[in-house]
């Protein structure tokens, strides 16, 4: 019925329609670009510009062009360095621990027979819960007096007295990291499960035939195939964790005394509680640069390993 079109065979996904006069692509994409420009591009450029000014919303007429003074101020700002350190700490631990748990979890779930696959759905639950609620919930569980965390630890004999979780610097950081991990592990499990399913069956069977132990199979078959997804997932989550606001804000508000203040919280406070827009913008620009640098290093490492 349908004769084969006389257009030469195209490879999948590479639609090379040579109709250069059609403005169609632009019509299709324009709405998206518009939205993204309004909400992301314009504010970004605006922030870059604002960072060069001394601009406080409480005194909007007193807007002085101070060039790099904000950046100078940042260099000497202890809170800035503390929040940078906290951000790296928070992100680093969250991602690494979540990755390990997620990988192990995905492997275990992958081993289950089909009828248990609904279980994986349940394990994904913490991820859909709003950050605010995770924050409230863990705030309750880590409460000094009635927090269930203390009770469990005490009953397990790990601690004698109740720990003042959210009131002590290091403990507070540990608490928010734990809440964050609880919230995020499901995403890792999800991504790695997808990755595990994409490992070709014949490769796995070949490994078994050749007498590889489970550990050997993991090291030489599973890991190489998962590497791509591991890098993508962890990069995505590093970015996401840099941005993480709800959990920390509701659990500790950045306290006690800036010990859990990450860059986000600091910028938020500067911009919306102290209304110091100029300085906040400057920190934001620095953040972009830090994140871009991390991402580029990441990708470079990835490609280097591919060549080896």
């Amino acid at each position, binding site marked *: 019925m349908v004769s084969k079109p006389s257009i030469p065979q195209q490879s999948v996904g590479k639609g090379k329609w040579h109709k250069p006069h059609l403005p169609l692509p632009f019509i299709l994409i324009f709405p998206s670009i518009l*939205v993204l420009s309004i909400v992301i591009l314009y504010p970004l450029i605006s922030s870059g510009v604002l960072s060069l000014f001394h601009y406080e919303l409480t005194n909007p007429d007193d807007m002085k062009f101070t060039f790099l003074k904000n950046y100078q101020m940042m260099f000497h700002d202890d809170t800035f360095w503390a929040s940078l350190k906290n951000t790296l700490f928070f992100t680093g631990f969250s991602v690494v621990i979540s990755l390990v748990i997620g990988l192990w979890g995905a492997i275990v779930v992958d081993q289950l027979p089909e009828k248990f696959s609904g279980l994986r759905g349940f394990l994904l639950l913490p991820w859909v819960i709003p950050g605010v609620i995770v924050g409230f*919930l863990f705030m309750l569980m880590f409460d000094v007096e009635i927090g*269930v965390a203390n009770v469990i630890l005490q009953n397990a004999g790990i601690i004698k007295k109740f720990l003042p979780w959210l009131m002590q610097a290091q403990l507070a950081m540990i608490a928010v990291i734990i809440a964050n991990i609880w919230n995020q592990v499901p995403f890792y499990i999800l991504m790695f499960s997808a990755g595990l399913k994409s490992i070709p069956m014949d490769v796995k069977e070949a490994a078994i035939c050749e007498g590889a132990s489970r550990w050997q199979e993991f090291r030489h078959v599973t890991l190489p195939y998962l590497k791509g997804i591991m890098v993508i997932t962890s990069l995505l989550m590093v*970015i996401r964790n840099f941005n993480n606001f709800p959990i920390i804000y509701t659990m500790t508000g950045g306290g006690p005394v800036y010990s859990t203040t990450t860059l986000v919280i600091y910028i938020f406070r500067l911009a919306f509680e102290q209304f110091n827009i100029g300085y906040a913008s400057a920190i934001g620009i620095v953040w972009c640069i830090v*994140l871009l640098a991390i991402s580029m290093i990441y990708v470079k490492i990835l490609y280097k390993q591919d060549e080896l």
Partner: protein
Amino acid sequence: MFRRKFTLGWTITIGATLALLLLWTFFPIYWMISTSFKTNMDVFKLPPDFWPANPTLENYANLFSTATPILKFFYNSFLTALLTVVVTIVLSTLSGYALSRLKFRFREKILVSVLITQMFPLVVMLAPLYVLYNKTHLLNTYTGMVIAFTSFALPFGIWMIKGFVDTVPVELEQAAMVDGCTRLQAMWKVVLPLTTPGIVATGIFAFLDAWNNLLFPMVLTNDITMKTLPAGLVLVFTGAFKHNWGGMMAACLISTIPVIIIFILLQRFLVEGLTGGGVKG
């Protein structure tokens, strides 16, 4: 297809891991539920009851009767989330299709820049955005919220749908167009049905992002009756009310139920969406 035989050691390991994972996953959720049914006295009991000694519905009753406009928060969240889903799906599909099929000069650059937008600190962009919204009267409006939410969900949606469209052979559309379809008809009839998992996944993510988002509603609305659930709850449970644990947990539970339901119903699309699309190594 054959697999290894399960040794006893391995089976125990799997069982133990699974048990731990399930416990770790469900315990906080259970705690939230059980606290929401405790009376105020019971909440502060030491050591806390595992099972509420005097289960009560008073926390829920209080939620709906007092000054906390929780129903309004609900409504705001639902409305903005649903609108975001619709707008995101439409825009992502159009853009994803175009970026996959159509060749034009800026294609690569647009693709990369879409991804880069993910990296930027939303906090920082909120200040200029607030000023912009103020001037254009978008503060405290649903339109403003939906635009903001959509921008958050769009990059991921575009990438996901593009990945899916990439896997659909061009020949199918060519055949349809030979049969007399226009380009758009070919897209509608041929490509879209095949990318449904990606579209649904995009929709789910858009809904989740909109429902769970705290920053945008917190900053872009001053009027408490326009706040969505996360922002509203933060406003309500501050200061003295912070220790109304029972009420807080009840509010949390109610806020979570819609997303849990959606998730349970549609979760297979999530997995399909991530496996079928271009999210590989």
